[in-house]
């Protein structure tokens, strides 16, 4: 297998804070890769840098061997990288069908019509179980349903790789199972996934490979079982990162 997405020494600072500090890792084509780490370890910043919302200070990002560092979010989407947001972002006053049809201004009209045809959009809504609500405004749906709409929006763009920022966050267990199943099914059809998630059970059950970040850099990676028992990971999650006050609080 080859690396579809590759990060080489990516660095990003906000003022004095180094959110990413020479971060390097790769996502193999056709895999489901997990990205975990304590809060503030740089996972979302990583997503923002890949998708063009933030500009990396140093390092490079390659998509199928081609440099995409610094490209605009729209361009990166057109190259086949889709993403969802930690706080779900759908177009609240557009219907679900309309939500799926936003974007892709850069592609020829014929291709766009193919991508956004009624049949294909309805199929995607059906895939996430929301076909009945096709003509309902997205803002009226529950938070979990909006996550599914967001997933369908990304799929409508026909991406090669999908970055999911906490797909299981803040939704009920039934929907979590459903989202997991959908991801696996899409993966079988050839879509690569990079998933940031705090729900360990979900990540460990879903992913082929898990990368662990702490303080802007990768500290471990491997298969879920391997990572789970890695002392560095346990340390990052449970001890090392805490200062004395917090430790005191934790033991109280």
């Amino acid at each position, binding site marked *: 297998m080859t690396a579809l997405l590759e990060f080489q020494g990516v660095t990003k600072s906000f003022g004095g804070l180094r959110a990413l500090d020479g971060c390097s890792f790769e996502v193999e084509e056709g895999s489901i890769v997990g990205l975990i780490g304590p809060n503030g370890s740089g996972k979302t910043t990583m997503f923002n840098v890949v998708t063009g919302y933030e500009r990396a200070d140093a390092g490079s990002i390659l998509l199928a061997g081609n440099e995409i560092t610094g490209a605009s979010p729209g361009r990166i989407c057109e190259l086949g990288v889709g993403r969802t947001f930690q706080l779900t972002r759908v177009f*609240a006053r557009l219907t679900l069908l309309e939500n799926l049809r936003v*974007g892709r201004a850069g592609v020829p009209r014929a291709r766009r019509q193919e991508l956004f045809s009624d049949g294909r959009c309805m199929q995607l809504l059906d895939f996430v179980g929301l076909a009945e609500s096709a003509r309902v405004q997205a803002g009226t749906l529950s938070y979990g349903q909006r996550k599914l709409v967001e997933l369908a929006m990304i799929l409508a763009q026909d991406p090669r790789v999908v970055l999911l920022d906490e797909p299981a966050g803040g939704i009920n267990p039934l929907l979590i199972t459903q989202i997991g199943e959908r991801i696996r099914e899409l993966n079988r059809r050839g879509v690569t996934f990079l998933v940031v998630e705090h729900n360990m059970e979900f990540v460990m059950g879903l992913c082929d490979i898990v990368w662990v970040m702490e303080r802007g850099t990768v500290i471990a990676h491997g298969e879920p079982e391997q990572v789970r028992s890695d002392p560095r990971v346990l340390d990052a999650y449970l001890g090392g990162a805490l200062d004395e006050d917090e430790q005191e609080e934790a033991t109280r």
Partner: protein
Amino acid sequence: MKVATRSVIVLALACAIAFPFVFRNPATTSIAFFTVLYVAAASAWNVFSGYSGYMALGNAVFYGSGAYFIANVTNHLNLSGGVGIFAWVPVAGLFSGIVAIPVGWLALRTRRHTFVVITIAIFFIFQLLAYNLQSVTNGSAGMQLPLPPWIAATYNDYFYFAALIAAVIAILVSWLVRRSHFGLQLLAIRDDEDRARGLGVHTERVKLMAFVLSGVLTGMCGAIYAYYLGSVYPPFAFEAIFDLTVALMAFLGGLGTVSGPVIGALLIEPFQQYLTQQFTAAGLSLILFGALFLIVIGFLPQGIVPSAEALLKRVKEARTR
């Protein structure tokens, strides 16, 4: 389009065409002229602001630019009054569209509240320019347009039909935008601009295109208005009340809908014109205007069309139950 919608459109258009043949009083046809003109202007405003959610309060820049353009053309080419002058109206619109390019490029670097303030600031810059650029505006002395050869009894009719054509064009453009992929991108920008950008919407380009389109349509209105008045002065061409009026009309009818600004203009403009004719003092109409604005914000924050649609939907649902 549904048959019912189509019938309403045909009926409304028939009424609009028949109006000056039924009502012959110049005071009435004057009100009708301004109403139709504002239907066009409010729809033009909605094409950018209603769909994108960017509240432009400086559309008088394009209204005034269109007015001064046609004044300059008729003066420099020594045109005599007549129907032929109306041929310059679309050209005036294009001129306003060209003005809208740098204005939009500048103003659209900001968002939301800042954008509103910037458009107001640009509006005042243009008003000041109109007072001071003597060579193209003749300053506060104003410019005269050729006098049309029409008798008083039919004078308003020519302008009424010119404005009606402008209104039909503006509504048509608004409708085409609303159902196009371009319009969908504008609506997506309204709901979440960064998200839209992330899905490959060229937000800068889409916003500027809509802004310029709005400018072209508004410029046409300004040119018709100038010819109707027969003269152009800085405070009339670049009028702050115009900025507010078109926005209020769209607010009242329903932002981002095709019919909203039309309904808003049909309700507000005759009322405003009537008050001005009856009491001359423009101050009174402004006070009532302010009160109306508060009522809209207070009771119909979404505007008439979306509120009515929601009501209709509830009635339907209740019936099927």
